[in-house]
């Protein structure tokens, strides 16, 4: 079936440590993945994306890894800061030839940074 899920609903890390947030997807037709960050009381905000023809993509302090063999996606945040505390969502884009693409969001992982 089509589903996107996160392995851990909550994650606590010490300030300065690296964070890893995981995501599993089940649809092999997914061709594009996005990570969003949602701070309390706000809408989700784009962090980084990756296409299915890539294994890794780096941004500023963030790296997304894609393992298509096991249908796994991860978001790595380097030197985690208090401002990184938020809920993180992965989203998968499923290409559909006869209709608009379908985007499925995971339930989210809450990241708490301990000062």
């Amino acid at each position: 079936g089509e589903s996107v899920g996160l392995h851990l609903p909550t994650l606590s890390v010490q300030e300065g440590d690296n964070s890893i947030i995981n995501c599993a997807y089940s649809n092999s037709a997914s061709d594009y993945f996005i990570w969003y960050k949602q701070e309390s009381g706000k809408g989700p905000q784009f962090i980084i994306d990756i296409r299915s023809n890539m294994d890794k993509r780096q941004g500023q302090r963030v790296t997304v890894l894609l393992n298509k063999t096991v249908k796994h996606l991860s978001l790595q945040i380097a030197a985690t800061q208090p401002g990184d505390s938020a809920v993180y969502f992965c989203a998968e884009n499923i290409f559909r030839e006869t209709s608009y693409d379908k985007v499925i969001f995971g339930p989210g992982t809450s990241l708490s940074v301990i000062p």
Partner: protein
Amino acid sequence: DAGITQSPRHKVTETGTPVTLRCHQTENHRYMYWYRQDPGHGLRLIHYSYGVKDTDKGEVSDGYSVSRSKTEDFLLTLESATSSQTSVYFCAISESYGTSGAGELFFGEGSRLTVL
């Protein structure tokens, strides 16, 4: 920040009453979406629009209707609100859609609806 305004931001209403949420954008993006967010479910697509007067259903469209008479406005209507529609509603916009482009969604600040 993308120019997206949702109104109202908070609303409490009673079961059976009609409710309309408004999304206004100043980015002139073609695609607009309405999502609802509930604990444990993430974001689920209600309806989306790919142009003026062009709309389609998402995965949880029952009990909702939408209209888009202008590029900048996308309205979500609950004809007869039920308690199960208590949720936080997010409007989103995008310049392109999925694999045809970047696919990045820009979200509004959300509208919290409580149906008693």
